[in-house]
């Protein structure tokens, strides 16, 4: 699998995941992502799952692990555009309230506390 990370004003990271996320792939990308988080002034991660074709519970571990790293700075997490199956997995795991559907721009506004409508 692949991922892309975009920074917005140094405090928000948008991470786009592609392909299939399992234990093997989570192990490969975890430390790289973790490094970026711990370096900057990051307080928000937006996980864009729109192009992720598959995820098992390793995705829960990956996201919870980064939430823990952000908790020192009282950071926030947004899980953007999960598939139906991923939605169920996040629900079982108590992460339902972090999910949202929309564009990355919507998610960034949401993270900055500017909610439309």
């Amino acid at each position: 699998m692949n991922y892309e990370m975009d920074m917005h004003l140094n405090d928000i990271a948008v991470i786009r995941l592609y392909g299939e996320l399992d234990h093997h792939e989570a192990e490969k990308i975890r430390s790289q992502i973790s490094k970026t988080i711990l370096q900057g002034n990051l307080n928000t991660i937006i996980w864009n799952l729109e192009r992720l074709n598959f995820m098992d519970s390793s995705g829960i571990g990956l996201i919870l692990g980064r939430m823990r790293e952000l908790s020192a700075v009282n950071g926030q997490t947004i899980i953007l555009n999960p598939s139906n199956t991923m939605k169920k997995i996040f629900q079982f795991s108590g992460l339902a309230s972090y999910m949202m559907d929309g564009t990355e721009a919507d998610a960034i506004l949401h993270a900055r506390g500017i909610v439309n409508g």
Partner: protein
Amino acid sequence: MDNEMTLTFVAISENESLARMAITSFVAQLDPTIDELSEFKTIVSEAVSNAIIHGYDEDGKGIVTVHAVRDGDVISVAVKDNGKGIFDVKRAMEPLFTSKAEMERSGMGFTIMESFADDLQVESEPNVGTVVTFSKKFYSVKMPQIS
């Protein structure tokens, strides 16, 4: 019995995707919906990852077996390892229980498997191994065309 396959492989994490690909191809014959297929793949991925990670500590030697049978619109699968086994299956199956928190395992594997499968059994014996069996009925079945 309409079709049957067995896949065996050594316990390295790269083979998680191998198992998913094989099972995807096996299930494709039933023309599943996207959601049915992805739930099915998730169950297999959880069980196979557990065999590799927990059963064998990813030793690259232990053998994982995935056996699948199709009977009409029902597919039954058994994922088996001869690894270290589970001492207390009931406890292992509780949501959030994990023996590998340091690896960022969430402890949600069994909960997800149980939710997505129509029925799921776990048989395990310490130092002998573990077998996870489950089945799932596919509803949006187009019968294979004979032309």
